[in-house]
């Protein structure tokens, strides 16, 4: 499996950049599309023996123990879905052929980085793949070299560099303490009550670095600028999956499989999660830029994942993993819709828009599905994951945090209703009378993502049993 997700994409990027670039430029889109489709199939049908038998030529190449468990598969699936969506959005929003070709190359590199993060079992290799993802993300944000995008990319580089310093220092300390960098070696020394001061200090440093990467409050300064100034296809990728994998998935993996839970880690996670939920929701209420509002909404939703994880209970962790997947899907849908609106109207300012549902009915309708799911309205996918998190908080006697989580859902509904009213409902705004629905490809993507949101919600018992419940195996305490 490692060959399909790391080696083949890597050789693919190299071949795409060999001579005959005009031919390669035409092939690049289809090559990337097949890669991401295969990734989705591998993640869903991971039990199949086909992967083991068909890749015998390549698989012995890596002399590394990859960590592929049920948490990895659900995130690999989300990476495949969001990367494919971003690729399709780029086809309609990046006009220049060279720009599109560079985008596809970097998208494949970013997906290798993310798949690597999900599959490694060594903290230094984790850092290497985090850097691959981050470097690709910086360049993708600055792809069109516009002033604001360069500023957004610079803020991301700057804060990401601070996160890198923290994580590298932590890894150095852990290496000194444990003599190794594998998850197992570190777990044996730093988890449990007998951990030394330097062990705890290293854990704290690493967690702070991950909070920056995940855009958790108060380390979120870079996120609204990076999300809102990047090209639409890049915003889809950043908001949909890059920050989820580099910050939030890594946080889950490191806490569950390496550092372990103790009272302090639980309190820090729940406090940071609750602050992110409220700060993100309140900031989203005051925005008039469509993408910036979605960026603050992401901060708020990431807060739910961190809050669920912080409970340290089985239900809370399963809810956090499920919300991570759901958020990847519905936030990607919302960013695709914002890309469609920006493409057709030329603006993201919600005060200049209005009545677009009459002109863009599919975009308007799928946007309603996405925001209802984000707000936790039944029977959509977001309802179930939020319910699991809130029940986990209540059952672990964290009543105040449970009340905050419920109240913030009302705030989420408020800012999304405000967005829907300003952009899609009411009279068609002046100058937008001749607007048409987005191109077929973008409409298709919106419908597919909305169908996933509805489908996962309606078939929750099946999805839960097949993909979420098996994550229980990871939780050994």
């Amino acid at each position, binding site marked *: 499996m490692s060959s399909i997700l*790391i080696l083949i994409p890597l050789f693919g990027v190299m071949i795409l950049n060999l001579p005959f670039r005009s031919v390669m430029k035409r092939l690049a889109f289809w090559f990337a599309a097949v890669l991401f489709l295969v990734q989705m199939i591998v993640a869903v049908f991971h039990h199949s023996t086909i992967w083991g038998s068909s890749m015998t030529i390549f698989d012995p190449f890596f002399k590394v123990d990859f960590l592929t468990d049920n948490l990895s598969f659900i995130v690999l699936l989300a990476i495949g879905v969001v990367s494919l969506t971003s690729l399709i959005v780029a086809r309609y929003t990046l006009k220049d052929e060279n720009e599109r070709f560079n985008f596809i*190359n*970097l998208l494949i590199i970013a997906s290798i980085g993310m798949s690597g993060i999900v599959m490694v079992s060594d903290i230094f290799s984790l850092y290497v793949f985090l850097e691959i993802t981050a*470097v690709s993300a910086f*360049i993708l944000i600055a792809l069109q070299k516009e002033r604001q995008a360069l500023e957004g990319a610079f803020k991301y580089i700057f804060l990401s560099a601070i996160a890198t310093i923290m994580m590298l220092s932590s890894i150095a300390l852990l290496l000194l303490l444990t003599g190794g960098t594998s998850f197992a070696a570190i777990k044996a020394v730093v988890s449990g009550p007998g951990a030394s001061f330097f062990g705890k200090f290293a854990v704290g440093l690493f967690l702070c670095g991950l909070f920056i990467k995940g855009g958790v409050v108060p380390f979120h300064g870079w996120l609204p600028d990076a999300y809102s100034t990047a090209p639409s296809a890049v915003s889809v990728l950043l908001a949909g999956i890059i920050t989820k994998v580099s910050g939030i998935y890594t946080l889950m993996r490191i806490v569950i499989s390496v550092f372990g839970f103790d009272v302090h880690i639980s309190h820090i996670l729940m406090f940071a999660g609750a602050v992110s939920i409220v700060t993100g929701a309140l900031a989203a209420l005051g925005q008039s830029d469509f993408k910036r509002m979605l960026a603050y909404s992401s901060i708020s939703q990431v807060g739910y994942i961190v809050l669920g994880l912080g409970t340290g209970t089985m239900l809370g962790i399963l809810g956090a993993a499920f919300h991570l997947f759901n958020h990847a899907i519905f936030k990607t849908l919302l960013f695709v819709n914002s890309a469609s609106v920006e493409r057709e109207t030329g603006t993201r300012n919600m005060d200049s828009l209005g009545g677009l549902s009459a002109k863009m009915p599919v975009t308007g309708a799928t946007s309603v599905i996405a925001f209802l799911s984000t707000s936790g309205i039944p029977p959509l996918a977001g309802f179930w994951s939020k319910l699991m998190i809130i029940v986990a908080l209540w059952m672990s006697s964290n009543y105040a945090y449970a009340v905050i989580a419920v109240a913030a859902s009302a705030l989420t509904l408020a800012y999304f209703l405000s967005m829907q009213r300003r952009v899609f409902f009411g009279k068609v705004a002046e100058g937008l009378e001749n607007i048409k629905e987005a191109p077929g490809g973008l409409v298709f993507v919106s419908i597919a993502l909305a169908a996933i949101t509805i489908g996962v919600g309606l078939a929750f018992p099946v999805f839960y049993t097949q993909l979420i419940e098996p994550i229980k195996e990871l939780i050994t305490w």
Partner: protein
Amino acid sequence: MTLNTILLIIMTLMALYTVVARSLLKATIGLAVTSAVMTILMFNLDSPLAAVFELSVCTGLITVVFASAIALTKPLTHKETIEVSKNKFRRYWYLPVIMVLSGVFMAFSNIPSSLFQPQAAAGAEDVRHVLWNARQLDLFGQIIIMLAGAFSIVILFKEVRKK
């Protein structure tokens, strides 16, 4: 005062110079010297493999890449350079303070010195094993990062030149 302490002080001063240097090229040279001094420290601390990598990659390759990238940028005028320099001093005045305070903290704290002693270093015969077996995935990771770096130069510099 041992040789290592003197080298450590030189390395720290050079690192500071790298941050506050007026021109990017001088900062690059500062970084190369910092890296070269670190190489000597690594040899002294019985880590010849790490030292060779530091010398070839950090002192050599990275300096060449930085110098090439700087050659693609538009140089600042003398007036602009002085302005940037003043701003840098204003922005980073706290760096030497942090450095001195950290040194004082380390000197008077009860951190066991054994914690910072270099552990077993890889011998020459272990190099192939370390690179190809133990850290193979990181080696691939580095190749991918270099690929991403090449794209960044193409995207951010080459096309700007064309325009």
